[in-house]
């Protein structure tokens, strides 16, 4: 049993989706994990790296390492940030990564790794799960999130057609190639709405910002909700 973990909430959840961070804390504490929040944390540098700004990405990566060095476990509710730290830092920082990448774990993998499947969550409604690209193809979380969702009391899980298709977010791609991104989003939203679910769920606030923003723009009744928020639900 892991007694304590540091939370890397991500700049996006911190700034725009605090409920995702709060839910993550709730889930971890319910599992008996003592959570710390190193206040100096800001951003892992993923967006800079993926956009070609290597110097900035290296600087932010170094900063991340300085903030989290010495933490045995760092949990984050973002598959793409976890993927970035775990898969890019070694090349970006070399020995300066100081073992930090290996300590960073995405939330659903962390919870599954504890052997905790039924964590006493309750959720009223139908949910469809969108496996984000980086969770699926870089981090390879597999069916960890789905197994967790299946154990949530009251939750009806429905399959998303063409689930492994990219939603079209892609960081700066969403604005640099806004038309293509919007076309990909439209197809994803159609698939989500075709399931009749009340909620679309994922492990990345960034993709959910894109999907949720699209659903809202459409006036859809479907809500975009982070996995942590569902797992934290106790009512």
């Amino acid at each position, binding site marked *: 049993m892991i007694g304590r973990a540091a939370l890397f*909430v991500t*700049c996006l*959840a*911190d*700034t*725009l*989706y*605090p409920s*995702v*961070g*709060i839910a993550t*804390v709730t889930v971890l504490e319910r599992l008996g994990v003592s959570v710390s*929040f190193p*206040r*100096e944390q*800001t*951003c892992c*540098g993923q*967006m*800079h*790296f*993926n*956009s*070609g*700004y*290597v110097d*900035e990405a290296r*600087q*932010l990566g170094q900063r991340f390492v300085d903030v989290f060095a010495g933490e045995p476990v760092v949990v984050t509710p973002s598959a793409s940030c976890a993927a970035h730290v775990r898969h890019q830092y070694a090349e970006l920082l070399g020995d300066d990564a100081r073992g930090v990448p290996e300590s960073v774990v995405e939330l659903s993998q962390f919870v599954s790794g504890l052997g905790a499947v039924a964590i006493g969550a309750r959720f009223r409604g139908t949910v469809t799960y969108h496996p984000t*690209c*980086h969770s*699926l*193809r*870089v981090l390879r979380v597999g069916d960890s999130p789905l197994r967790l969702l299946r154990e949530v009391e009251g939750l009806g899980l429905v399959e998303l057609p063409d689930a492994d*298709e*990219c939603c*079209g*977010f*892609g*960081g*700066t*791609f*969403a*604005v*640099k*190639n*806004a*038309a*293509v*991104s*919007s*076309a*990909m*989003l439209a197809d994803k939203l159609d698939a989500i709405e075709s399931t009749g679910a009340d909620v679309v769920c994922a492990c990345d606030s960034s993709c959910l*910002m*894109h999907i949720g*923003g*699209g659903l*809202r*723009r459409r006036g859809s009744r479907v809500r975009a909700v982070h996995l942590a928020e569902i797992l934290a639900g106790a009512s």
Partner: protein
Amino acid sequence: MVRACAPFIWRKFLPVPPSRAAARDAAPVVFPQAARAGLANAQLRANLNAATTTIREKRAQVVAEVGDWEELRDAAAAIKDSALHRLDTVLLELEATVTKARGIVHWARDAAEANRIVVDLVRATGADEVVKVKSLATDEIRLNEALEAGGIRPIETDLAELIVQLAGERASHLLVPAIHKNRTEIRDLLRVALDRPDLTDEPTELTAAARLHLRAAFLRARVAISGANFAVAETGTICVVESEGNGRMCTTLPETLITVMGIEKVVPEWRDLGVFLQLLPRSATGERMNPYTSLWAGVRAGDGPSAFHLVLLDNGRTRALADDVGRPALRCIRCSACVNVCPVYRRVGGHAYHTVYAGPIGAILQPQLSGESGQAGSLPFASSLCGACADVCPVKIDIPRILVRERARAVAAERQGLEGATLRRLGRILSDRRRYERAQRLTRVLQRPALRDGHLRWFPGPLGGWGESRDLPGVPAQTFREWWEARERGA
């Protein structure tokens, strides 16, 4: 223009403005604009969607049949790397084996040199037309234009290449060049081009019309030009993989055969074909094996051409070879599996890429081979980095990784743009916790006039793209860290 004090979260998603240098160069077509044209063409999108869906399903089926698919991919990547890492030796071995088999080997540093060699070789035969097997290398060097300029008529013999040639268009897919056209469009084209007003839109009938049209060309051809899928250094064997029999016609019937091949196509050993002939057909067309694979070395008395020329083409390949991150792109066997799964390609089509090699592999190969930023500077950004391409690549090219590398190059070449300034500034904000927290608070204040029901619907200037299809929540009354601190204080 977004001023420095504007809400930082907006800047996080700033697009690249067309660079000033690019704007000077007579406004070249950049990918985002070209993509809009593809997206707006409903017929194109329907054709593409139908075709790529079919081919993806077929591929998935025949790949699932192969229990050792991953081991084959590993071996294929290693074989290609082993050849690339001693490319000089392997090419010299190929030169020796081909020469021993009475073939003649030519070396071409760039497109112009390759074209000159080929045109001179054709001229020396006295022929004024050539039959051609579909070849991306000759598309890349624009050989057809060079032949025409030299008074030689090139006849494309692959059905799709013929369709594209007759339509005066460019290929839009590595393997299925006319994927953007449906049967009705092809019928209308062939009715006019082949003077066959009787044609219906049945693929069988359209194919028969092309067969008839090309038969005469094959039987009279004196010179043929092909590419190569593989060349085996050990045996001097050239390998052409095809379906229609046009490849066999071209490599068998004429007196003279000229093969133009990128230097990265060489594999060291004969047995290596046992790996690639499993991976290529299944990845490319979703077949267990393509109908015809032709293998020959030099010339053979009494069977096939009496003269064989092999043109070894660099044209930027050694530039890619020098890049430790980009080098694996040279493993590419042009199967186009990455193209068929790419969510961007499938929506915009190949023409938006403005390059011979469309899709994800093109987005890395084009900048690598040309060494150019400029117009091509937009190609590495034509991807959401979803990674579907890397998953299907039979030679395990980490396409997203190379895309990101090419992005870094494009950024380094054109740093002074608006995006550069913004992302650098954002980087500075994020590098300092106090600055970051101040920016959060400042945004909360500045966003107020634009908020509707807690959300933003419209975004200034280059950020406008986000608002095309998406709302965005504003910074809430309490950020996570503010919540955490409040809780700590309460505890």
